[in-house]
């Protein structure tokens, strides 16, 4: 089974039915899979903070949301994570493409990569790093954990995990 399919299967099994995405090459397969599943309302957003607003609304409306984005978006969304998702104590699984790690061809991506974990730690956001393909086996448990504790939770997926950029 492909990693993308396994990830989306876990979303569906955990009743995640509202997923917002911004485009990403590494996460392209997951995004396509979200679009293809009838159980999921896939709503592309223009910026990640907008997407977090959509997710907050969907959660309050009774659906389990998730956001799929790149790690550069941590820089865009700190205020939203703190004053919306955390302040109102809402769950939000964030499936993140960890650009700028090993096998990265674009130098600029490394600039944000070096800040990614530090920023997430500063925000007290539980963070998991998928590096080996088998790490995906924890995804189901991470989703359950997220909706148990009502927090934003980051899952960083790097190029090695995806089998090379």
């Amino acid at each position, binding site marked *: 089974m492909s990693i993308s399919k396994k990830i989306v299967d876990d979303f569906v099994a955990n009743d995640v039915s509202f997923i917002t995405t911004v485009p990403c090459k590494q996460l392209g397969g997951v995004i396509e899979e979200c679009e293809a599943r009838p159980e999921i309302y896939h709503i592309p957003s223009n910026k990640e903070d907008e997407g977090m*607003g959509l997710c907050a609304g969907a959660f309050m409306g009774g659906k389990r949301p998730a956001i799929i984005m790149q790690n550069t978006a941590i820089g865009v969304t700190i205020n939203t994570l703190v004053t919306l998702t955390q302040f109102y104590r809402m769950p939000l699984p964030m499936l993140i493409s960890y650009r700028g790690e090993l096998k990265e061809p674009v130098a600029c991506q490394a600039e944000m990569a070096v800040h990614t974990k530090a920023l997430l730690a500063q925000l007290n956001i539980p963070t998991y790093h998928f590096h080996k393909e088998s790490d995906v086996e924890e995804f189901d448990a991470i989703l359950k954990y997220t909706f148990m504790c009502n927090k934003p939770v980051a899952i960083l997926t790097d190029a090695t995990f995806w089998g090379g950029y």
Partner: protein
Amino acid sequence: MIRSEILREIAPILRPHLVVCNIGLPSQELHSIDDQPTNFYMLGTMGLASSIGLGVALAQDKTVISIDGDGSILTNMGTLPTIANNVADNFILLIVDNGSYGSTGDQPTYAGKLTSLTAVAKACGCENVVECKDVDTGKVLQDAIDSKKMTIIVCKCDSGNIKLPVITRDPVNIRDRFMEAVKA
């Protein structure tokens, strides 16, 4: 009319519906005029009232009205194409367009100058966009609710604020109360 006068006038129309209210003075005003469990007050995160409201509308069937401002729409302009392309006929976006950033001291916005949010919303693909005068807001809002069509209302009004205390209700309580009202 200034925003607080409009809110006072439309409060009875808002009351039976879910309302997501913009950060700062709009939320403080609505909270003081007619606090309801069906009101979600934004205490932070400028710009996301429309996104949160759309999310609520897409997730369930009750009518949702987002009360936004021209400054907040300008902050999150990407919201309009998302709204246009994800039609929720139980969603109404009411943009109180007073041409100023009220909560920070009435600094002028570009919407009060050359930029028309009505034209922007239409260009983004929103099908039902109504621009109205402040005095007509109640009628236009009620018509939009009754139409059961997703509608963007741009209400042109005067800038100006009344002095009110900040909302001290705990955010988790605001959210929980709102979620109970959604389920009721």
